[in-house]
């Protein structure tokens, strides 16, 4: 009798498992971030019995996106896929392939108020009239890091980081004069010194509200302010005050090993610096040129968002919508924010984190949030929406190296970035109109 009961129980358990629908979630997170993704899924799975969210690591951002594309073409797409910000326009243009989040939420009668989200974050992934296409997942923005110990040594006030670019360059020179190898470096010349720089100064990066209002957008960042900015950095590079550290985030060791005293990096790198820097460092907002009207505005985000694939069984979408609503809850957002260092996507999660006293020991992330919330975003500071965005950034990175190597002048280089970038924009337009 006992045996029969046992067998029956096993069968029931299997039947129960069968009734549960798996929601596949492909992501590109590693290390602690991947653990936190799994923890979010576990939390969600524990709240109900109908769905089971299964996170699957698929490699780098581009690997994950390629895996998603290949799977979609083979009819095997996952439900949810994490796509980096440069892939946004490509995903948007893939009309039959994705289900916009606002539509998903409406179809499944999910309680969904776009206003609870931080506009600079959700705006990046919404249409220009505010319809959310993908759910922001891991978002960051660029900030300035400075070495407080080096500031003291150079006779500078460690509690007064530079606020404007002229101040910044002066301090950088003083840091070098105090015996450091150089004054400053930067990661992500494209994302930080061009895209964020333009948004922060409320200057258009591209026409049509940086591409939000149409595929016939043109790059226009070859203005005097940008030219002056890169010219100054290039000149300081010759003087050894600026040290080039490589593309993407390759310049980090220059700062963490104390060879330069000022650095620009995503707030996502905050935890990393806390682990690797053997000195006290501070986080401050991006500098600005005081003679530019409207500066400082707000900075823009980077990172990735969650897209939902089309053509899955209708019942599955209920689970996807529930999961997205679940991870947007303040307590889950606060958990994500505090475990990974990425920014919370709702104001409520920010307030919750503040009330928990997190920023007392981690002042860096709050600088980033305040920088994002500094002003209501304008057409120049909502985000960037370009097709072939990867190619555009690649052109910028390559040309910047040619500028620093003296192969091309700053002005010609920036004009080349715009010219070549516009060519790839036209190709995207031709294919997708």
């Amino acid at each position, binding site marked *: 009798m006992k045996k029969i009961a046992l067998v029956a129980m096993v069968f029931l358990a299997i039947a129960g498992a069968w009734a549960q629908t798996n929601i596949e979630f492909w992501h590109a997170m590693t290390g602690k971030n991947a653990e936190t993704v799994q923890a979010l899924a576990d939390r969600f799975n524990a709240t109900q019995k109908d769905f089971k969210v299964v996170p699957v690591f698929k490699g780098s951002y*581009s690997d994950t996106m*390629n895996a998603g*594309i290949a799977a*979609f*073409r083979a009819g095997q797409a996952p439900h949810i896929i994490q796509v980096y910000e440069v892939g946004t326009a*490509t995903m948007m*243009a*893939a*009309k*039959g*392939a994705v289900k916009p989040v606002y539509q998903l939420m409406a179809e499944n009668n999910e309680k969904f108020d776009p206003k609870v989200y931080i506009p600079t974050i959700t705006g990046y992934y919404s249409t220009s009239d505010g319809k959310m296409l993908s759910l922001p997942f891991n978002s960051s923005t660029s900030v300035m890091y400075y070495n407080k110990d080096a500031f003291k040594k150079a006779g500078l006030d460690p509690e007064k980081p530079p606020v404007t670019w002229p101040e910044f360059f002066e301090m950088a020179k003083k840091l070098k004069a105090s015996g450091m190898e150089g004054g400053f470096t930067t990661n992500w010349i494209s994302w930080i010194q061009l895209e964020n720089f333009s948004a922060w100064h409320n200057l258009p990066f591209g026409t049509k509200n940086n591409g939000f209002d149409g595929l016939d957008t043109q790059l226009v960042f070859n203005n005097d302010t940008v030219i002056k900015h890169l010219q100054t950095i290039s000149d300081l590079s010759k003087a050894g005050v600026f040290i*080039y*550290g*490589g*593309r993407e985030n*390759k*310049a980090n*060791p*220059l700062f963490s*090993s104390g*060879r330069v005293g000022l650095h620009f990096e995503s707030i996502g790198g905050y935890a990393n610096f806390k682990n690797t820097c053997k000195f006290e460092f501070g986080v401050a907002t991006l500098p600005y040129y005081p003679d530019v009207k409207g500066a400082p505005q707000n900075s823009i985000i980077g990172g990735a968002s969650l897209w939902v694939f089309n053509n899955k069984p209708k019942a599955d979408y209920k689970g996807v919508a529930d999961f997205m609503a679940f991870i947007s809850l303040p307590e889950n957002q606060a958990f994500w924010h505090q475990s990974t260092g990425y920014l919370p996507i709702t104001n409520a999660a920010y307030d919750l984190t503040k009330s928990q006293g997190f920023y007392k020991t981690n002042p860096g992330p709050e600088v980033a949030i305040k920088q994002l919330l500094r002003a209501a975003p304008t057409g120049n500071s909502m985000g960037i929406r370009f097709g*072939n965005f*990867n*190619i555009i950034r*690649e052109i910028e*990175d*390559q*040309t910047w*190296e*040619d500028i*620093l*190597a003296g*192969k091309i002048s700053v002005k010609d280089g920036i004009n080349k970035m715009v010219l070549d970038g516009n060519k790839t924009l036209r*190709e995207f337009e*031709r*294919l*997708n109109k």
Partner: protein
Amino acid sequence: MAKQYEFPSKGLPYLLVLPQMVIVFMFFFWPSAQAIWQSFFLQDPFGGRVIFVGFENYTKLFGDPDYWASFRVSVLFALAITVSSMSISLFLAIQTNKKIRFDSFYKTMMIWPYAVATMVAGVLWLFMFNPNVGIIAWLLKYKMGVDWNHLLKADQAFLLLTIASSWKQIAYNFVFFLAGLQGVPLPLVEAAAMDGAGPVKRFWRIIFPMLSPTTFYLLVMNLVYGFFETFPIVHQVTAGGPGKATQILVYKVWRDGVINLDLGGSSAQSVILMIMVIGLTVVQFRFIERKVTY
């Protein structure tokens, strides 16, 4: 000469080669056909929209000075690797083939780098020479006064890639040269010595010609390695930079296709590469092989 074996039925040999043919078809013919097909289209990555453009993907490439630059650097790179790794490994093989102490120890050590995966080799050399963290970069800069910065200096980037790629290939070449040297009949060399030929003359007149099959084989393998298998090293060490200075053809195919999602352009590039390989192989076996004594 060789004994011939007659199969009892006509079908059996076909059946026996079938598995191999299936593999070749699936992993070579099918993808190649797809690449040729895709090279005539512009398409969005999801396959939603496809525009037939004829030869536009090709004309765009050939009209692009950057593509020619990539072509040039690929050829130079493959030649540099082939010449440096073959000459160094031949020298080393001759040295260890002499009767010296610890020769088997040297031989083992020499072969070792071949066991290192190309990707790992790239990381190794990157860590040593990276201007931000590398120990050798530091030595060069602060102890020897060399302004080492391959992140901005194209010549240094090219040199570093050549050293890193050759290092791995030297081990491979070494094994073959050593085996080739051991196959040279000693009486021949001794007879030449008796006739008064010095070591240099003996090498060029007897040993080197006897090695020619090995040399020819290695020439082909090294060129192929230089063109196609150095991708992981370029990917790790320079990512094609500074600017586009070390963007070799295989790296460009990958970037344009996988990262930039330009499937048409990337397919056209891979078709060009395919034609190059076919051409290279035909030329090598048709003309160079004739001068080689097997």
